[in-house]
């Protein structure tokens, strides 16, 4: 693995000049070093031409380039600052279809005037992946968008770090033209007063401090009135995104004196939020890693039909681990976006160890690889192995899982039992997994009655897939991380 050689001068440019003459031109430049790159350049050109023809894009043209600094000599509307460089070598040894998969979205982004063209490792900051950093969930997004357009509301559930917030952000952006959208992160504003103040401030445009004073008096009324005002004044149908609902329910739990007060406040909170939404026909998307209905049932004995407003109508949607149609292609897109040139053996190794199912840790690891490559100029597979070992030992990219296991599991025994189950799954080869029976045996160590609940908690919190009576991890990297946590090496290494 090495950094892209952007000092190469010769190549073929795919330039786009806005036919409307409004947007700034763009240039994708595929640099070559010699005869070994001819085939790759041919494939790139064929794939590019085919996409442009298929989509009937206008304004694209191919140019031979001998000096990128003089691109304006090709056409005065092209500027060297607008060139995005690649090496044809990065597309070498790929099938035509693979080249098309890599190149087509790039061409689409150029044609649509998008500023960003590819995800990059440097974009891994731990927050929701937005824009180009959002990895492929095309089919699920289309289905969720369709449901919302049809007027449905739902609870989006997935284990942590699977991209729920990113999906909501993407839906928010996709729907923003036809809908009024509002995003409420309850992990950030978990107390009803804070939540009410935040929405009041949205309505009145007064400062958050002033809104807090008003909300202090009667949080639920302020919350209700604010949601109602937002719905009423929205010129378009409304979609309300609520992230981490259970965080708010937990905050109520902390402050309530007794069970009855907690129950009453929980219902009041849900009524204040969901009542006006139902009244005004707004859609709602609620997301969380914990099944909120199980939570309400087990903690307060509340069933969904007893819940107020829109909450009674939420259907549950499970967001599965990122099912990348072509994981290698996604990986290559990330490498392309990060100017990392991988040799076939690097790609093979990365595909075996660093899937993007749980994107954040994988992207963070690749960012470390990029840093090391910048520092040393070249990183081979042996060094990749060492880097991964160090990463698994020291990274905080999985801290969220760790925190949930150690602080949010029902009991110490439960933590141990879950840990044992995770180890049992991890010890088996990634593709094979372990029998469900073996997992259940581990969970039973926490006490017979809670085993079923723990099984649910295990699947809701960690990237675990249950299929054909087998349990396996959805993420190779998570498996390796867990093995390193328990001091074991992967048996299938």
């Amino acid at each position, binding site marked *: 693995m090495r950094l892209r050689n952007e000092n*190469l*001068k*010769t*190549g*073929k440019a795919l330039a786009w000049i806005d036919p409307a003459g409004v947007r700034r031109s763009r240039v994708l430049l595929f640099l*070559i*070093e*010699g*005869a*070994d*790159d*001819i085939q790759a*350049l*041919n494939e790139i*050109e064929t794939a590019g031409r085919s996409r442009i023809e298929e989509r009937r894009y206008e304004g694209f043209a191919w140019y*031979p*380039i*001998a*000096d990128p600094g*003089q691109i304006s000599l*090709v056409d005065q509307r092209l500027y060297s600052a607008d060139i995005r460089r690649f090496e044809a070598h990065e597309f070498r040894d790929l099938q035509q279809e693979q080249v098309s998969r890599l190149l087509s979205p790039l061409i689409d982004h150029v044609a649509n005037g998008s500023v960003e063209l590819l995800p990059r490792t440097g974009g891994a900051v731990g927050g929701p992946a937005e824009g180009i950093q959002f990895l492929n969930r095309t089919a699920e997004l289309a289905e969720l968008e369709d449901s919302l357009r049809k007027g449905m509301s739902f609870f989006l559930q997935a284990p942590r770090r699977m991209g729920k917030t990113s999906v909501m952000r993407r839906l928010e952006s996709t729907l923003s033209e036809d809908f009024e959208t509002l995003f409420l992160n309850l992990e950030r504003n978990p107390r009803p007063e804070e939540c009410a103040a935040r929405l009041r401030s949205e309505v009145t445009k007064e400062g958050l401090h002033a809104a807090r004073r008003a909300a202090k008096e009667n949080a639920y009324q302020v919350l209700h009135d604010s949601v109602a005002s937002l719905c009423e004044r929205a010129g378009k149908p409304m979609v309300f995104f609520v992230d981490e609902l259970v965080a708010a329910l937990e905050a109520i739990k902390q402050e309530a004196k007794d069970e009855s007060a907690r129950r009453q406040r929980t219902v009041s909170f849900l009524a204040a939020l969901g009542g006006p939404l139902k009244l005004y026909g707004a859609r709602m998307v609620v997301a969380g890693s914990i099944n909120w209905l199980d939570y309400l049932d087990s903690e307060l004995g509340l069933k969904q039909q007893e819940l107020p407003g829109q909450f009674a109508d939420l259907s549950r949607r499970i967001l599965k681990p990122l099912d990348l149609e072509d994981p290698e292609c996604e990986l290559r897109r990330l490498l392309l976006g990060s100017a990392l040139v991988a040799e076939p053996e690097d790609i093979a190794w990365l595909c075996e160890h660093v899937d993007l199912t749980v994107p954040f840790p994988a992207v963070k690891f690749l960012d470390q690889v990029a840093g090391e490559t910048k520092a040393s100029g070249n990183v081979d597979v042996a060094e990749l192995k060492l880097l991964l070992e160090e990463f698994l030992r020291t990274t905080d990219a999985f801290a969220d899982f760790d925190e949930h296991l150690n602080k949010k599991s029902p009991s110490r025994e439960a933590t141990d039992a879950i840990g044992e189950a995770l180890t049992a799954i991890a010890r088996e080869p990634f593709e094979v997994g372990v029998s469900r029976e073996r997992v259940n045996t581990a969970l039973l160590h926490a006490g017979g009655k809670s085993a079923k609940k723990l099984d649910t908690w295990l699947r809701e919190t960690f990237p675990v897939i249950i299929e054909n009576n087998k349990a396996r991890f959805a993420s190779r990297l998570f498996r390796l991380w867990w093995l390193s946590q328990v001091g074991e090496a992967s048996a299938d290494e």
Partner: protein
Amino acid sequence: MDKIARLVEDHFPWGQPGYPPKPADPADRTAEAEKWIAGRLQIRSLDNVALALHARIQKIVDEVESTLPATERPRFFYRSDVSHLVKSPKSVLDKMVREWKPKDGAPKVGFDDFLEKMDDLVRFRIVLNFLSDVKDVCDKIEEPYKCKASERSRLTPAQQALMGEFRLDGNRLRNLIRALPAERRSAERCRKGVFFLPDSSVKIEVQIQTMLQEAWDKKDHFLIYERRRRGDRIDEHHSIEIYAMSELLYVADLTFDRLLDAIRHPRRKKK
């Protein structure tokens, strides 16, 4: 019927395997032949082969430039012209016709072998500043093809890569700069080499010349070459003058080179 139409009419292998059927309307036949030529040129991705050669030669140019004192490097390389890498179908027909005498029957370069026979079907140009720059770069390009196998270890990585990937016709670049007057067929001045991939017979012509030589070529192209190609009458005096301009600019190049040498070696000047 013009000469191109006659060539297409009489010698394009209509309907044979790999060739289109003959259009009913004679007026469509030249266009159909041009379309077929365009397809043949595109299938072979000739421009990408030429770019690969350019990338290899560019490295050698960079190597020569890196041997110059830092103050001289910015003036060394002027530009590469890769804007017309592959001849247009119309130019291919023009060239076929130029070398064809109808009374002799089939053209020397035909539709079945133009890809292999035309030396300048694919070409690019590298323009340097001084005559000595052209010589230095050409020496470096020729060196791997001229040296013995036992001497190859002295070659630079760029030279080895060029020789490893491309063959040079005759193992040398033709010298149209220092050709004797009696040997000169035109006023054009440059170094010219024909390269090809080992597994391909398609040739790529590389021209290396000075800025003044390119300047002359650009003017000649407009004043004489294009007009002659269109069949316009060329005034004899224009031909004489344009030829003389090439000689004049050569003398200018020689003078510039002498001045360059003088500022590089001031002591020698004192002597």
